């Protein structure tokens, strides 16, 4: 065997092993939990008339943190239940793929948390930008998960872009904060609930 062939063989094995080490936790329950948080936050924001820029940013940043914590908890519970380590190489790869867009999304909220005057005029941009960044995060993490997550990433990115284009269309007025709560609740809440329900139905079927 040619040494170059041996080297190529080792490289192929490395690539196959990396691809095979997919994140294997069931994502259905995680999506349902995240969706539940989204719907709750949307309901609170819209129902309690949270129409202050700082409160809007704080509510959704808090909801995002709660959703991340809940997802972390559910994934850890699943891993322990399966007798496998939680902080496995695939989990680490997913966390590092998710982190940059999620941190960027959180950082975007900072000027709005400070309640600057200009922030009120552009707060309607936040849901669209958050959806686009979240879509990028899912798309990046999807390389270490099953294919469906990358499609969900695309769906969020497209929804964010559509939201952005819709409100910038000259025929439409910029949305109120109450409408932004609805967009967030629908996008992050209902979106995750629908996808979570779909996964719950199909995840086991795909394994057979």
């Amino acid at each position, binding site marked *: 065997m040619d040494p170059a062939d041996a080297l190529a063989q080792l490289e192929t094995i490395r690539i*196959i092993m990396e691809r*095979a*080490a997919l994140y294997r936790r069931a994502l259905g329950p995680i999506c349902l939990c995240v969706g539940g948080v989204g719907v709750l936050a949307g309901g609170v924001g819209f129902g309690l008339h949270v129409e202050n820029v700082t409160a809007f940013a704080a509510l959704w940043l808090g909801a995002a943190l709660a959703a991340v914590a809940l997802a972390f908890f559910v994934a850890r519970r699943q891993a322990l239940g399966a007798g496998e380590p939680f902080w496995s190489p695939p989990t680490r790869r997913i966390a590092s793929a998710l982190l940059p867009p999620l941190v960027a999304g959180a950082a975007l909220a900072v000027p709005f948390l400070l309640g600057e005057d200009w922030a009120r005029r552009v707060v309607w941009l936040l849901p669209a930008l958050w959806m686009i960044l979240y879509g990028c995060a899912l798309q990046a993490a999807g390389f270490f998960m099953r294919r469906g997550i990358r499609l969900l990433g695309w769906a969020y990115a497209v929804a964010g872009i559509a939201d952005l284009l819709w409100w910038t269309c000259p025929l439409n007025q910029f949305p109120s904060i109450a409408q932004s709560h609805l967009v967030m609740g629908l996008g992050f809440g209902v979106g995750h609930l629908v996808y979570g329900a779909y996964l719950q139905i199909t995840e086991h079927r795909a394994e057979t």
Partner: protein
Amino acid sequence: MKPGPFLQLDRVIHEKVRMGLMSMLAASPELSFTELREGLQLTDGNLTTHIRTLQEAGYVAVTKAYRDNRPLTTCALTPAGRKAFAEYLALLAEIVRQNRGAA
């Protein structure tokens, strides 16, 4: 006299599809038939043939079970399979190393 590393390569593993199967199984505690088939883009028949070869060599254990009333076939490396794969990798690395030493 000990043969060169190439001649020592395990012929059961040293085949494109079986090497792929062993690599996938080495990276996960177990994988379903579907995951292996999709991961390596094989037909059911082709996959079954190669799994049987690995099973007969004692490298892979196949478990048939039911989950939610659906049949689920999973494969995992046996300790012998894990050892054989580690030796296979070591021999490939040895071939590369020998060449570097000679250059």
